[in-house]
């Protein structure tokens, strides 16, 4: 009997947060360090290392239509709390460029799960179970629903895990598990997963 392997899929933002940003020499004075990372970098890295050690593939969702928004979101998160008193927009652009380059390279390391555009039924499930979220919009975006649709139809013998920081997923964690058999893992808790 073969070993049943679980599936671990990451949303694009979480994948981007694996990037280590090199701070150009002129800006290091504002950070007192040479490298910047997103706040959950260490936790994500720990999970990725565990998967790699056990030769378990990592998955992402395609097509990545919102990658530009995700890159800007992660860049803003990396910069949060810092006061750069010189060429601040240039520095932000340098972070964006490094994230873009990182994305081009790392995506080859992830296997693909195709998003599914047939979201009518899924949308109805969410609409009839709408929750009050901290986010501005309580309803997940169509792209979020396409991820759920694609993942729920993806065939896998073990459990399906979705690692994400997006409240549109973890805010509906119970609903997604019950209806679509996907375990939503909050990004900041992903290092606790036993793989």
């Amino acid at each position, binding site marked *: 009997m073969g070993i049943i392997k679980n599936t671990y899929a990451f949303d694009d933002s979480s994948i981007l947060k694996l990037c280590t940003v090199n701070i*150009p*020499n*002129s*800006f*290091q*004075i504002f950070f007192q360090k040479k490298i910047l990372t997103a706040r959950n970098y260490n936790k994500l890295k720990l999970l990725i290392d565990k998967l790699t050690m056990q030769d378990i593939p990592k998955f992402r969702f395609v097509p990545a239509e919102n990658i*530009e928004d995700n*890159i*800007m979101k992660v860049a803003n998160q990396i910069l949060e709390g810092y006061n750069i*008193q*010189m*060429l*601040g*927009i*240039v520095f*932000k*652009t*340098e972070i*964006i460029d490094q994230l*873009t380059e990182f994305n081009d390279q790392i995506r080859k390391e992830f296997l693909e799960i195709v998003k599914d555009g047939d979201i009518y039924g899924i949308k109805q499930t969410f609409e009839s179970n709408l929750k009050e979220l901290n986010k501005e919009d309580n309803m997940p975006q169509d792209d979020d629903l396409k991820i759920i649709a694609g993942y729920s139809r993806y065939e896998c013998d073990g459990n399906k895990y979705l690692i994400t920081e997006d409240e549109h997923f973890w805010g509906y964690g119970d609903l997604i598990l019950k209806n679509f058999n996907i375990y939503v893992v909050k990004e900041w808790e992903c290092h606790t997963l036993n793989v």
Partner: protein
Amino acid sequence: MILSKDEAVCLILGMSKNGEVSSPTKLNKLLARLNLYFIPIDFSFLLNKFGSFSADLSSLQANDYYGITPYSYMGRSVNKFILKPKGQELFTETIKPKIDKILTDEEFNSLKKTIQYLGSLSVTEISDNEHKKLLVDIDDRFKLKQKINENFIELSDLYQQISKLPENKIAEIRLKALVEYCYYLIKYLKEKRFKHLSEQEYDFDAHMFDYYFLYNISQVIPFLNKQISEKEKDAIAINKFYQYFVNSVKEEYPFSIDNQNLRELIV
């Protein structure tokens, strides 16, 4: 984005007739010309009386990408550079995709024609052409000063406007970054590099990037003015200009994000 030394040489050879350049001096001039097309290359250029000069070029040796073959020209032995099959592969698979991120096909074809045309000129003709464009000659100092002042005023105006611009797309952020960078760069050129212009004779210690940047800033200002008011930004062109100004120079040029003392030049 920056082209490495080998990539830059293969770009020139790949665009030249028969994949050849007839001498190291001509290769130097053609590589220098890439600066006027906003292509960042990993060569540093200094000023000499014949125009831009790169010490790095004299150390170039034949490798897998290009060969250096001696031939006799008017009784002298001259080395010519020839693109090898591996260099052609590098051109197609690595260099061209990089170039596609900053130049349209039309711009690339125009650059190719220019390189082929310049390749047919003598080294002195190429230098004269560059000197005139960049206002390097002492006789052009008045025009040079005028240009610095005009560009500084125009960029000060543009810099005042960027705080009002949105940051909803990467192209919008990059456009703001480009204006920010160009404003501090022209300020640096005006207040530091060209401050004592009228007191000096020919400045043999000058960095060619002082001249390239000044010339290129004057070329980019009309584009910036237009882009600020455009709803749909020209992402490729914005990226081209941004990559050129920010990534063409490293620690060897003081106004560089790789210089750990850059802050002192800005504050």
